[in-house]
């Protein structure tokens, strides 16, 4: 039995967890650096003069020059970059070119609403797609219900193709305007969450449903499930204990990738519902060409996505420790 203990001892001896966490953290730092640099470069690379664009074509030249000086755009690039980093370290995101308000206040006021929307939508996706895909797989395995399989494939592929902002427009038209059962726009209590969350969650749910079904079918065809069937366990126990855990670990990796996309998707959906989040702020400032706010929004959304990515990776590694050993 010496080899069993040697094998059991091996992962502990070499600490794959430390290696794994260090690598992921390093990747996060590099990515954050890219976001910071990109947001810095944006306002300086934009064709034309962003300050003039924000203030309007008929703004007096000395006002534009003053604004430029205020933003530090008249200094050398390395110095500007250094200033940019120092301001970020203090939590200062600059001021809006249009309103003159500090952008940090805007972010502080609006980011929670965006994250709440994204997290709620993600929760909905998981709650529906994980059990749904599992059931669909068990129901249609071995081509025993070809019609149900076709219906499932057709429905999910159509739903997966519906863009969230189009769905948002459709839902508004249907459930808020034509049949006024839900609020049209804004954050007016729990009822107003229904439509934005629905609009955000529907397409990812369809995508994840298909993935969970495919993963479950793979597990159902595995040797160890046949071995478990040979033990004639009750169907419920067989599926919950032998099938579900393996199918879900694989599916959750895909699901983890959906959350960042959901955060990005809020930009469009918030615009439709005039949701008081960072996304609609970004959309508005793009329209108003207020690049200070756009820059900050890109920075904040980008880094939240990266942090979420990092957390999802860690959570997945906790769920499936073997992946840590594989990936290091």
């Amino acid at each position, binding site marked *: 039995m010496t080899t069993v203990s040697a*094998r059991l001892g091996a992962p502990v001896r070499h600490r794959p967890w430390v290696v794994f966490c260090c690598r992921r953290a390093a990747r996060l730092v590099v*990515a954050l650096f890219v976001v910071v640099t990109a947001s810095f470069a944006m306002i300086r690379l934009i064709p034309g003069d962003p300050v003039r664009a924000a203030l309007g074509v008929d703004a007096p030249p000395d006002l534009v020059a003053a604004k430029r000086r205020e933003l530090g755009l008249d200094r050398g690039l390395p110095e500007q970059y250094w200033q940019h980093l120092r301001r970020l370290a203090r939590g200062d995101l600059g001021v809006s070119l249009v309103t003159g308000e500090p952008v940090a206040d805007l972010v502080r006021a609006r980011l929670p609403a965006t994250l709440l929307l994204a997290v709620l939508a993600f929760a909905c996706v998981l709650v529906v797609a994980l059990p749904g895909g599992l059931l669909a797989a068990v129901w249609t395995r071995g*081509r025993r219900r070809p019609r149900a399989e076709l219906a499932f494939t057709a429905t999910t592929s159509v739903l997966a193709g519906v863009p969230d902002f189009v769905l948002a427009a459709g839902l508004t038209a249907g459930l808020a305007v034509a049949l006024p059962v839900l609020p049209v726009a804004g954050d007016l209590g729990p009822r107003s969450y229904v439509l934005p969350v629905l609009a955000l969650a529907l397409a990812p749910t369809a995508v994840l449903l298909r993935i969970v079904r495919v993963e479950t079918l793979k597990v159902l065809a595995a040797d160890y499930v046949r071995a478990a069937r040979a033990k004639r366990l009750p169907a419920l126990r067989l599926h919950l204990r032998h099938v579900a855990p393996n199918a879900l670990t694989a599916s959750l990796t895909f699901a983890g990738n959906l959350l960042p996309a959901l955060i990005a998707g809020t930009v469009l959906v918030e615009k439709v519902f005039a949701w008081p989040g960072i996304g609609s702020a970004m959309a508005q400032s793009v329209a108003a060409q207020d690049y200070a706010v756009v820059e900050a929004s890109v920075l904040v959304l980008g880094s939240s996505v990266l942090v979420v990515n990092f957390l999802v990776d860690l959570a997945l590694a906790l769920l499936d420790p073997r992946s840590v050993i594989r990936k290091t």
Partner: protein
Amino acid sequence: MGVITLAMLGSLAVLAVAGAVVWGQQADRPDPSAVLRGPTAGHPLGTDRLGRDLLARLLAATWPSLLPAVAATLLGAAAGITLGALTAVVGGRAARLLGALINLLLAFPALLVAMFFAALFGAGAGGAVFALAVACAPGFARITQTLAAQVAGTDFMAAARVLGLRRHRLLLRHVLPHIAEPLMLNTAVAAGSALVALSGLSFLGLGVQPPSYDWGLMLSQGLDRIYTEPLPAVAPGIAIVYATVAFQLLGEMLAGAAVRQARPRPEEEPVAHAARADRPASTDHVLEVEDLRVVLPTADGVVRPVRGVTLTLRRGELVGLVGESGSGKSLAALAVADLLPDDARVTWTTHRFLGADAESLTREQRRRQLATGMALIFQNPASAFNPSLRLGRQMTEAVRAHRGTPRAEAVEQALAQLQRVGLPAGRRLLRSRPFQLSGGQRQRVAIAAASMMRPDLIIADEPTTALDVTVQRQIMDLLRRVRREDATAILFISHDIALVADACDRVLVMYGGTIVENLPARELAAGARHPYTRMLVASVPDLAADRDPPPLTIEGGPPDPCGTAPGCPFHDRCPHRLDRCAVDSPVLSPLRPEHEVACWRPLPAAPLGGARETEEVEK
């Protein structure tokens, strides 16, 4: 589905080409008298704020909506595929750097990247296309990288490298053809997403700028008046969904073509040939099966892997079921165990397990009987255990579920069984997971788990094929021990005729889905009477025999598993065939006690002491 997809794509193509020509003028004609109208007979979708007809604009916008999406996808795909393919071609360090770069780019959601670059390139259709191309390139790079890595790991790529082929030839000749199909599929799906993203950019005001227009911009403009008039917002939305779904379905169709699943209906079985008269149930028999047949629909047509198998196992008997690949031995065993895939069809004239007819039991009774009376051991110990459950649970769950044994007692039983198979550090092992054990250890745990229930029958499906010879001996000794101590009957399936002769009491030789001979194992080497068995024995090289003459080869190939021709399955390879062999299927019938052959002209008993029949067989 294919027809619908083609119809949708066709209509889009027609609209894209004809739209601007037919409705272009009408779409640009302002009508100050009919500004911001709702749907009327003249304007089915209403008009915009300059009084232009929205339906005409919608139709005319097909081209400017689709073209940028397709262009952006193609640009992004070209860039991404180049980047991904480079990882397969360049050397180690550069490949790792490129991989890290792709990882980094993938961390940002495509939509965010597209918005960033659209703002950077300046609002407008051109900027949006480039922004989108940049945004979707990393996805293509990743998928190309993964696919190329898969191809690079195959044996045929290794063979090509050993041949010293040059890099560009490796890439063009071996890598790209294999990844082209999934990449095409991916491109079709990506075109759909590009259309959505592009509309999204227009919707945000970062894409097409007025006076140009596309569906996204129309949606955005319609949204301003959605409170009064939903249709101007909904109609462009529907157009976007329509086009996206068309692209999605195209991808689906390409994927389907790649897999190409034919689903033939199982035909009716030909009438079974003369079965033997029903024998009375014997208490000594653990398992009696007569004329077992399996029909299996596959991609290549309906397969009949098992065509009338008849077998009997007595208590405590170790019986080998031997045959070459494709002889149907594993499927016959799975059919006995009621574990075939869902789409398989099984028929039999008799199927008695522990004296009870399969038909006379209810589903639940039969499930209970199989659960407590039969256990299985599978070929590949690496995949036969659930990777996410501890071994202890996997060993004890059956007794706990069917016997109601309490946990502690079940664990004690498991420890005793592990002790018996030579794994004394049981408690620790019960807490470990399958991947922590070697193949031989896992197969020993499988034997211990199978004997937890003290079953009357163990079916062992090639349990030693994945293992080394020294481990194989340990496993065979363990199986014999289980059989001796528990009086369990064992059906041992193998392709290794020497192993079966060495270990079993009785041997069933299978060929083309039927059992051609049933004889005591000690007679296999010299006393086989069926020509196939004789030739199979002669083809086995033996360490103890002379080196010359070399072992025999059976010419020809195994029978077509889809074929329905009557006659003996071996007749076209048999040197002793008669005319009737091609027409009538021989039935397994007794020659002597304990020896049955399915042959119209069994070979004469071998001359005394002569093990090899090669001379006779070759003539």
